[in-house]
């Protein structure tokens, strides 16, 4: 999956990929204060056809939980399961429905996206990316966006959560890269000196099919040096 970090207080964006085997679950957000935790499970391409593999991975399943509310949401490309304690409510991506309960509202917009809004102003947007059902290689996947991330606590961690608080970085020595359209540069962040490449990703919150181009500095090697520790530190055994 691609990660896009719009750095708070800076008019710039950093991005990186995490390449792991399909089935791996990554911790994206972990906030011990609000109790909110978000995880994502990686999917690859359809089947095991080695000749068709491009190595691209995506999120196929997301888990959002609030330990204090005993609430969890499991989102797949097929369905959305809301769990309150032992009670489960199952919805489909074909629904247009708003579910409200104390401290939370969940809105599913048929075949497009869903918005999970917590009372304290934190919102998550999950976008359904649909591909042609009979496509030999690709399959549906999910996009995950955080709105008003600053409302999460300073103790928030995770592959995304660690970047919710302002942090500093510098980019200099912009120079031609291996691709003439994508210059390299040197970035200093978290006391690391990294070689980054100018690239672009897409923000699909407004339009799940076309998206909006976001120019970013791409950090290589699974975000090494940019993320705290190494990416395998964020592998967790299960969605919840």
């Amino acid at each position, binding site marked *: 999956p691609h990660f896009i970090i719009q750095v708070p207080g800076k008019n710039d964006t950093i991005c990186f990929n995490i390449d792991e085997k399909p089935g791996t679950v990554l911790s994206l957000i972990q906030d011990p204060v609000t109790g909110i935790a978000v995880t994502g499970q990686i999917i690859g391409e359809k089947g095991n056809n080695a000749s068709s593999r491009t190595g691209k991975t995506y999120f196929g399943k997301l888990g959002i939980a609030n330990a204090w509310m005993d609430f969890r949401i499991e989102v797949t490309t097929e369905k959305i399961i809301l769990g*309150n304690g032992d*009670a489960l*409510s*199952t*919805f*489909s991506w074909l629904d247009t*429905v*708003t*579910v*409200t309960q104390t401290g939370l509202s969940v809105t599913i917009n048929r075949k497009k996206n869903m918005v999970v809004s917590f009372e304290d102003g934190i919102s998550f947007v999950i976008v359904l990316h649909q591909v042609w059902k009979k496509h030999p290689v690709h399959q549906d996947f999910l996009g995950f966006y955080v709105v008003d991330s600053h409302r999460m606590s300073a103790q928030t961690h995770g592959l995304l959560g660690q970047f919710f608080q302002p942090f500093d970085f510098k980019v200099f020595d912009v120079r031609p890269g291996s691709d003439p359209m994508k210059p390299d540069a040197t970035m200093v962040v978290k006391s690391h000196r990294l070689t980054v490449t100018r690239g672009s990703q897409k923000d699909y919150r407004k339009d799940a099919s076309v998206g909006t181009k976001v120019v970013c500095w791409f950090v290589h090697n699974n975000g090494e040096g940019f993320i705290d520790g190494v990416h395998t530190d964020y592998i967790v055994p299960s969605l919840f």
Partner: protein
Amino acid sequence: LPEGVVDGIEIYSTKISCKVTSRFAHNVVTTRAVNRADKAKEVSFDVELPKTAFITNFTLTIDGVTYPGSVKEKEVAQKQYEKAVSQGKTAGLVKASGRKLEKFTVSVNVAAGSKVIFELTYEELLKRNKGKYEMYLKVQPKQLVRHFEIDAHIFEPQGISMLDADASFITNDLLGSALTKSFSGKKGHVSFKPSLDQQRSCPTCTDSLLNGDFTIVYDVNRESPGNVQIVNGYFVHFFAPQGLPVVPKNIAFVIDVSGSMSGRKIQQTREALLKILDDMKEEDYLNFILFSTGVTTWKDHLVKATPANLEEARAFVKNIRDRSMTNINDGLLRGIEMLNKAREDHLVPERSTSILVMLTDGDANTGESRPEKIQENVRNAIRGKFPLYNLGFGNNLNYNFLESLALENHGFARRIYEDSDASLQLQGFYEEVANPLLTNVELEYPENAILDLTRNSYPHFYDGSEIVVAGRLVDRNVDNFKADVKGHGALNDLTFTEEVDMKEMDAALKEQGYIFGDYIERLWAYLTIEQLLEKRKNARGDEKENITAEALELSLKYHFVTPLTSMVVTKPEDNEDQTAIADKPGEEAISASTAYLTSQQSSHSPYYYVDGD
């Protein structure tokens, strides 16, 4: 005699043709017979149709001349009928037949060598119960029929998820091969076409094996909780969400233990309650209120359905005994008070729903026994806060009172037939209401964009059922249509939205038009009349007159034989006139046949009636 000829009459063809589009069933039963005798013979035509169906047409064709039916206001037709009766000329009608059916019977004298064709058409909206729609056909030809066929075509825009058909009389592979059923995508088909030999009760017999129930069950795909269809300016909205947790219930069982319940009834009640206790969920609350001359309760207040409480409840139920008289008023008021108090004292969860279920087998005969006063007391005590369901056990009761009482308190009444399966009937009712998924369900449509909406507010949505709302668009040329459904779930409040793109709808219509294009308009009319007739039961004065006028107008416009209309068929016949009346029997007529059959010499033109009571 040729095969299939009995007493000179050959029924050479009987076809039951069913076309179902979006749950709305249009059934045509056609029988063709010929008199092979050398003198005039009487030919009978019997059809058993669901009580929930409305007859829309009956035609009689003799020697190629068709005599179509015409629907008239009941009073107008009744005058004709009375005149006919005074002349001794009646010959056919509908009467209640068993639990689910009404029997339509007509006989006609057919000259030697003449052919007669009977064709009865009826329509009904199939209701979803326990996750499926059921179409019920009674098959009982009086003799072997050369061409016997049931041919059902189902078209469901949401796609068919399952389809099955079964006949109680199919006992061997030979007859089984006469039944075919298939479905794919939006279309389903069931065909039952036994040959003459397959119809025989034994290889050398001349009597028919075909005698029993033929049922078709199916359900539709539910990729989304709702589905809106719009045709010719009319819309229908089907709503049946699934995958939601069950809302906990607070249920008070108010049980009649008067002397009349003694013996089998009380035994079956105990059996049913024990089964119901097995199905209780731990989140539920319950209590038993027993009434005879006085009122006794299991507990002073509702208790949680914990394993220990349920065990105690079982012991209590096993010891229920019958005694003395019937004090419905006090029994119900005690149950209502208990449910109200549980809510006021926060004894039950805030997100729970209260249900009052009464089982009785007779009229109130002690305490407050005036039905109107009991209704008033109950109405004032419940104040619309929860539904009352009335189960009427056996025949010795005022069912209309129980129905009226339930309807005005947002519930419904159900008959429990005094039979070996009474405990199953009771249990079956409980299963219907045991799983509320939503409460206070409101279906909302764009203001100023719709007219003539059917009921759009329901206290509960039960798992396995379906809410159907229909109406008319003010502007047929709108580009899109939006419907919102709001309800309270077990854990949260939900708002479902359905949006319809009219261009997409038009494209879909081209595909489904082959069944019958005006089905949504007829579905809307059926549903409107059905709801008006129900509302009429509790209306008084001007309100009742207005409801009656509205229902009558629609019945006449859409050619439905309802309790307000009659159908008349006139048939000129040499030297003999016949008049038939077919009543749509109400619940009160269950045990009493209202059939008349006479004929006499007359020079007047005869006519047949099909009417509702």
